[in-house]
Each structure stands twice: as structure tokens, then as C-alpha cells.
């Protein structure tokens, strides 16, 4: 039995399709959602969002958001989300370096926290960019 997954950002609907499984990075750790999961509302953190459909796993990089699971409907309200193969590795690497430098040069605690959040986001993007869609055994 498939379940419906919808990923929306504040700007637009990114993804809306039937899928077999969703692996999401929540604040309390990674969770795998299968059809008929119990109703759940949770906070997502930066990480890899894996979508499995017909045995193919497609990785996405997500920077945070919320996930609502309701019987066989999953809704992800994402801050930003990108498919792995849409991420430009070279540019992500550059952004990471910039974030790192900013972290080094941070004067206030606030700057530090901002730079660290940005760095974490860029690290996730890089990591996800290196994953390619993989067939699941």
C-alpha cells in the first residue's frame, strides 16, 4: 500500500507523489516512515531526507522544518529542500568554506550561532550531494 508524500516549502510545492518509504532526520534522530504509520508531528533538523519509491532511493538535503504523518499521508513543511543531484557540489563546497571562515571570525555569540547553523546546513548539502540515487537491496 503506497502512501502519499507532499513536500512543500514556503515558496512552492516541491514534491507530491506516492512513495513507499520516507526516512527523515528528526531532532530526536532519524525515523523511517512506512505506510500506516501512527499519526506523528515532529521537528526536522538539517540532514538527508531519503525517499524510497519502487526500490529506488532518492536523497534530498533538507535544512529543517516539520513533518506531519497522518495514516497514509505524509506532509513535510520544509525550510529549504534540494534533490541531491540538483546540488552543485563545487558551489556547496565554496559556501561551506565561507561559513567556516565566518565561524572563525565570529565576534559575538549570535554570529557564532548563525555561522554554525549555516555551516551545518552546508555540510549536510555536501554530504547529500555526494550520495547518488541508489538501488536498495
Amino acid at each position: 500500500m503506497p502512501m502519499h508524500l507532499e513536500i512543500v516549502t514556503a515558496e512552492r510545492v516541491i514534491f507530491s507523489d506516492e512513495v513507499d518509504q520516507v526516512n527523515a532526520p528528526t531532532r530526536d534522530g532519524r525515523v523511517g516512515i512506512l505506510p500506516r504509520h501512527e499519526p506523528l508531528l515532529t521537528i526536522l533538523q538539517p540532514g538527508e531526507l531519503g525517499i524510497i519509491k519502487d526500490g529506488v532511493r532518492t536523497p534530498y538535503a533538507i535544512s529543517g522544518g516539520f513533518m506531519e504523518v497522518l495514516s497514509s499521508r505524509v506532509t513535510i513543511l520544509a525550510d529549504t529542500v534540494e534533490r541531491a543531484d540538483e546540488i552543485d557540489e563545487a558551489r556547496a563546497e565554496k559556501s561551506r568554506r565561507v561559513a567556516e571562515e565566518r565561524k572563525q571570525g565570529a565576534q559575538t555569540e549570535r554570529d557564532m550561532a548563525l555561522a554554525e547553523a549555516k555551516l551545518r546546513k552546508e555540510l549536510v548539502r555536501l554530504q547529500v550531494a555526494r550520495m547518488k540515487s541508489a538501488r536498495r537491496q
Partner: protein
Amino acid sequence: MASSREIKRRIRSVKNVGQITRAMEMVAASKMRRAQRNVLAARPYADRMRELMGDLTARVSGPATKGTLLEKRAVVKNVGLIIVTPDRGLCGSLITNVLRRAVRFMIDQRALNHGVEVFVYGKKGRDYAVRNSLALVGEMTKIGDSPRIEDILGVAVGAIKGFQTGRYDELYIIYSEYINTLVQRATVKQLAPVETPDAPVSTNQIFTYEPGEEEVLHAVLPRYVETQIYQAILESSASFYSAQMVAMRNATKSAKDLVKDLTLTFNKARQAAITKEVSEISSGAAAQAE
């Protein structure tokens, strides 16, 4: 009467203006369509957010709302006001309407003895705030036609923090609500304390909240307010281009009318000159015949 040369020059210049306004009308029309699409595209997120909120707030109430964006404060001392205006003009009465609504709002608040601090999106509003020395604490200009939500967060986060830290006891936004191409209305909306949307009837299911109801609520609330601000900005953009399109259409029509008028005057002047010349010749001929 002006010389025919003078009139000819005016006709040419009015025609040129008409061509420019016509081009601007068409540009505004296409940008309006994109802005409308942006508003529509952002709607699912806002809708889902509202549903989620309705469900959450139905569970968390009373003392648990303290320190969140839901908290209703008994004594209101200061309010934060976000004003959304376009960066550019040539859009009829749109900016005036928004600013006039803002002024009325501030007068009302002062009558209640509330201090008002202002956050502004858009150059026109910023200029106004500076000119009238309003208490401007945050501003953002050059937002662009299709901003992403991160692009506009700077000011929004400042306002939300202001409420959370108790600097403001209420938070409002004034923007130009897009009703249709011909009608845009300057609207005031309360952002905080968040007015709880009605709980959706469909979700009689029992949710598991991870890490917990309150944590989720604390994370959702600021995002909810940010989304509302984002939507207001998108709607203002759609309003701006519609207003500009209509204003430019009127300008083009006026230019056309003016050209018609001037052409008539020109023809009359030409006719008068010819008549004069003919009568001069004929009177000259008559004089010679005598």
C-alpha cells in the same frame, strides 16, 4: 493660439510618453501574472501550517502559552508595526493608501497610550518613515519580484524576537491585500499574539508529538508568523503590479486622448493659417484690380 510648430512638438512628446506607459503597462501585466503565481504557489504551505497550528493550539492553552507567540498580555505598552510597501512608484494610489492606513493605525494606538515602533519593507515606506521621523527599527528594501522566504526573514525575525522578549506586546502588519486586478485594499492584520485558527474538523486522530507538544509549538509558532509576513509581501507585490498596470493603462489612454485633442488644435491652427493666407491673397488681388 500656439504656433503649429509648437503644437507639433507637443504631439510628438505626448506620443512618446504614451509609448513608454504602454510598454510599462505590458511589463507590469506580465510581472503581475508571475506575482499572482507566486502568491498561489505559497498557499499550500500556509494552508498546511494553519491546519497544523489549529490542531496544536487546541491542545496547548492557558498558562502553557506564556512566553510563546500565543501569549495575550494584560497590559499593552508597546506595539510593533510592520509596513509593507513597494520599492517603486507609478502605481496609482496604492502607496498612499497603505501609508494612510498606517498613519491611522498609529494615531489609534497613541490614543490608547501604546508606543509604536515601525519595521518597513520597501523603499517607499522607508522614505516615508524617515521623512516623518517615525520610530524606525528595521527596514529592508530591494526585495525583488520573487523573494524566497529566507530573503525576507531579517526584519521578520527582529519583529518576532521583539515580541518574545517583551519589547512589544502586540505585533501588526499593514500591507496591500490583493483582491483582484482592479481592487487592492490596505489591510491591517494582527500577527502576535497569534490568533488561533479554528481546529480542523478532520483531525480527530491522536498525534504523537516529538519531542513534545510544547517543543513543537515553540518551533511552529515563529515559523507560522514568518509565513504570514512572507505571504503579505507576496500579496503586496501582486497588488503593486496590478496597480501599476492599471495606472499605466490609464496614462496610455490619457496620452491618446491628449494626442487627439492636440491634433485637432493643430489642424484648426493650420486651417486658420491657410484661410488667413487665402484671404490676404484675395484681398491683395482685389486691391490691385481697383
